[in-house]
């Protein structure tokens, strides 16, 4: 790997999801030098795993394509994948950052021809599909992944598969000798865009996510809709592969709950409303959706999307925090128990599939930051002068939707540029 050149006029962006990509691009398109590091083999982040956006029902991959084109065209921006920040020292305008890079075992000779993937046999859970399908031990994370290179799963190193991958490659791109590497760079400002992860649904014990196959999370449900995803784009029950036409969406699964995440994750209401349209699109009048909610937070001008779904006779809304889920052994149907607070009726409702509108948890736990950072009680980074030139972007700053995450990222890019300009001014 060529040496990374960075100075105290360089901006480091940590995290290559939509917030990190945006922050990096906006700064680079202002003429600043930027290094973008991403811990996974590809940038793209969680939006690359979404089928559609609310409220426009457009495809996140369209925006990703534009951003990737911008990245490829910009010589101020350098992307490092499989890389994490292990330490930060110094101060605003002059940080020393230690980066740890894991081996891809595939170098820049790779043409993404796919011969290595054809050659290997071992299969692993596909992270891109949240483990709902398998991928090969040599793989391209997804069809738009960037860098446009394959990657070898570290588990195949030392096995016959690794040799097969190497033998299949005509371009000398498979390099089994690659190892961990560490480098220390100097940067002037840091944009922290490490994003979110879905709350561990297994911890919501009464919902039985780890016991009942037909209880899935909203992020898994989203993957089902991808025509090239684990179910070929069909809404199917994991237990028996049957079409799931009667689907319950449980809001605040892990959110607004002192036992779990005490914050509201903001996006889940709109996400479920959106997902209810998938159901209708796929099964027409046979579709039946039920949304169990506390408050529908279809905030601001996109409330009309909520109204549209509300007007749909096949989608019903039940104001209730679901108490527990059991399983009807005969049918495999999850049965939801609780009290409809509008009128105080008890219910025990069977559905064919349950989707937990899972909460957003900061990816990096409070004790996982490489330097002292002011966080709020929920673990999101506060905007605070004590953080120096360490600026949070996107969901590391709060539970945000894509639009707001991008605004936040753009704002953080400016804050970083202000530091860089000051450094540049001081150095003439």
């Amino acid at each position, binding site marked *: 790997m060529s040496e990374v050149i960075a100075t105290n006029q360089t901006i480091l962006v940590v995290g290559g999801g*939509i917030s990190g990509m945006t922050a990096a691009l906006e700064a680079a*398109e202002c003429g600043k030098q930027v290094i973008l590091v991403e811990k996974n083999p590809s940038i793209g982040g969680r939006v690359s795993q979404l089928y559609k956006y609310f409220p426009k029902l457009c495809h996140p991959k369209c925006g990703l394509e534009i951003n990737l084109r911008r990245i490829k065209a910009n010589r101020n921006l350098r992307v490092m994948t499989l890389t994490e920040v292990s330490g930060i020292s110094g101060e605003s305008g002059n940080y020393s950052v230690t980066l740890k890079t894991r081996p891809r075992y595939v170098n820049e000779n790779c043409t993404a021809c796919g011969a290595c993937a054809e050659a290997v046999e071992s299969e692993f859970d596909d992270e891109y599909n949240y483990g709902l399908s398998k991928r090969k031990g040599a793989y391209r994370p997804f069809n738009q992944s960037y860098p446009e290179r394959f990657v070898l799963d570290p588990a195949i190193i030392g096995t016959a598969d690794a040799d097969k991958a190497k033998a299949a490659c005509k371009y000398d791109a498979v390099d089994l000798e690659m190892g961990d590497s560490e480098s220390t760079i100097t940067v002037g400002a840091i944009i922290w865009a490490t994003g979110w992860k879905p709350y561990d649904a297994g911890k919501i014990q009464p919902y039985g996510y780890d016991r009942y196959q037909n209880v899935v999370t909203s992020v898994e449900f989203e993957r089902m809709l991808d025509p090239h995803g684990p179910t070929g784009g069909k809404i199917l029950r994991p237990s028996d592969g049957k079409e799931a036409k009667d689907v319950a969406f449980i809001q605040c699964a892990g959110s607004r709950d002192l036992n779990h995440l005490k914050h509201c994750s903001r996006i889940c209401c709109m996400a479920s409303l959106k997902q209810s349209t998938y159901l209708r699109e796929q099964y027409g009048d046979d579709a039946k959706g039920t949304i169990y909610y506390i408050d529908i937070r279809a905030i601001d*001008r996109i409330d009309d999307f909520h109204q549209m779904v509300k007007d749909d006779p096949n989608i019903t809304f039940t104001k209730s925090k679901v108490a527990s889920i059991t399983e009807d052994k005969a049918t495999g149907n999850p049965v939801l128990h609780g009290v409809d*607070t509008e009128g105080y009726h008890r219910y025990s409702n069977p559905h064919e599939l349950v989707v937990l509108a899972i909460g957003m948890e900061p990816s990096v736990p409070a004790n996982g930051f490489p330097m002292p950072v002011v966080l709020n009680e929920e673990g999101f980074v506060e905007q605070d002068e004590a953080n120096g030139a360490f600026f949070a972007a996107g969901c590391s700053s709060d539970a945000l939707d894509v639009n707001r995450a991008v*605004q936040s990222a753009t704002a953080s890019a400016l804050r970083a540029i202000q530091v860089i300009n000051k450094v540049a001014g001081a150095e003439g």
Partner: protein
Amino acid sequence: MADMKIGAYICKGCGLGERLDCDELETIAKRDGKAQVARQHDFLCSADGLKTIQADIDNEGVNRVMIAACSRRAKSEAFNFDGVTISRANLREGVIWIRPDDDELRETTQEMAADYVRMGCAEAKYSTPPASAQEKGTNDTVLVVGGGITGMTAALEVARTGYPVHLVEKTGELGGAAAKMWKDVPRHSPYTDPVDTEVARLAAAIEADNRITVHLNSTITKTSGAPGRFSADISTESGNTVTENFGAIIQASGATPYDANQLPELSYGKSKDVVDRVELEQLAIAANGGPIKRPSDGKEVKKVTFIQCAGQRSDKEGHLNYCSGDCCLTSIKQAMYFKDQNPEIETEILFDDLRTPGAPGEDFYRSGQDKMITFRKGQVSEVVAGDGGPRVRFKDLILDEDLEEEADLVVLATGMVPNSGVDIDNVPQNEPGEWEVNVDSILNLNYRQGKDLPHLKYGFNDSHFICFPYETRRTGIYTCGPVRRPMDTQQAIEDATGAALKAIQALESAKIGRAAHPRSGDLSYPIFRKEGCTQCKRCTVECPFGAIDEDEKRYPLFNESRCRRCGTCMGACPVRVISFENYSVDTVGQQIKNCDIPEEFDEKPRILVLACENDAYPALDMAAQQGNSYSQWARVIPVRCLGSVNTIWITDALNSGYDGIVLMGCQKGDNYQCHFVKGSEMAHTRMSKIDDTLQTLNLEKERVATYEVAITDIDRAPQLINEMAETVNQIGLSPFKF
């Protein structure tokens, strides 16, 4: 321009060498493509391959590089050479990956590849390296319109980055809506109590910053120019006008409180003790931390009821269809005004959905619960006058009961209406620039297409894109704060900071003649040949970004730094006088012409596919990646936007014997996905008129099909091509083969 010299480079890697006769392709590049240099390489994107190309550029004078290898989307960083044009013949994703590896099909696969080599050379021949726009604005100053928290923040952030700012405020003081508040919702942890609005702190910071010039009691009476060279007339109430020059503009014109007089059913205007949220702030300011007194008789308020969504989220006449986003937090804050002063005061919030998102929102809501504010899910039907105070009639949705309660004071949580000026899409225009309007314009743009920024739904001036909230439709002008979307102060501050970056980026880009998003960095710009122009105005009307004005003789007047390089004007022009250096009627038209059209008895149809480079073309690439296939008769050309498709391409293609034409653009309509706004829609309209041409040529109308294709249509896009192949199979070959 120095002599043109085409270098054609044919890659044999990724199976190309095995599947294709690359010697023949090299011959074709020389013979048909007129490439002076043509080479094959086993692994063209390798360091050695790139060195070969660079050496030819340096030593042989190659200045048109034609790379016949993978898709233009792949290895674009490797195949990136300065000072030359680069054309890509897509032999991998476009030929060998989408065609089965079968000996019987070898011939047609080779023909596909040969055509793409011819087309690549033709494109190279008619392109010149973009030299960047001639018109380069160099102004560094940012104009901020609106002196509320949003505008103040934008001004301070721009100044803090090192750029001068003019801040224009129509009233006599800075602070906007926040200046009329007693306190604001907290912006830092802990999110428990109302905090200072910080208007005074921001105003002092502006005062102290010598990079910021403030114009009070002033409005913008005229804006002209383009990024890097805007000119604005700033006029005071008394009629004094100064003209200043700017590089970019931030519009932070905010929102006006909804007029509660439209809510007689809630007794607003009838009872003095029914107030809106703004009036409650005034009562709190008057109380200054002491007991809040009600307007009718000055009695200390002991019970206050807040009615959420007053006149909002409703399709009733005169109501707002949307949620104003910040009212739930505002009512909690206002209820705290009472509770913090005296915990005994009864405060009740009647809501439908309580909307306090994120960590700060939910913490603040929880703090309200801790302070014993009552939250009740209730639907208010009316407010009537009572003996002791207004009586609220509502249905308690939890108890499922109709109830009536008296309060000392009722607060209507009313919404916000954006100050977005003239709705240019919905006002009649008598003459260019002459509008029949009685709404005050915010910017008074002298643009051909209207005085203000186009409105989105409900009058907000937002971007239409989820991924790109700053994708403005008027280059170099960015909105932020509640004018673009209902929002609270904290979000407005974040938004203002983002808009400040975009404004700075726009003026920096203008300095070097570089396009703004989404073709950021593009140095090409529209070149207009005045001699041929018939003044038909189609380009000025159709430009989605209002980049083209008309001069006094009614010729189009291009403002390059407003241009986004989509080519819609080029597609619109019936006399073809508009082009870009590397994208023109010729760069595409000559590709169409240079494809080999076999004679009729060969029974080899040709289908021209014009595909949007951002969605349909990647979908076809990914289809190839996934192992899909489509007809060997297809010849795909990526276009910047379907809006750039000139009907001459279609007519020429039909005349030269193509049997079918497929156009693939983005979704149009209200939820359009076209990043050039109306490109796809306009292409559909233009193509609906192509029937006449088909009729004149005596051709079946099925031969031309226009589709909306998304980037995820990985299976569908190839299918559409195959359907056209089937159609051609059924109706027969075109008689226009020579």
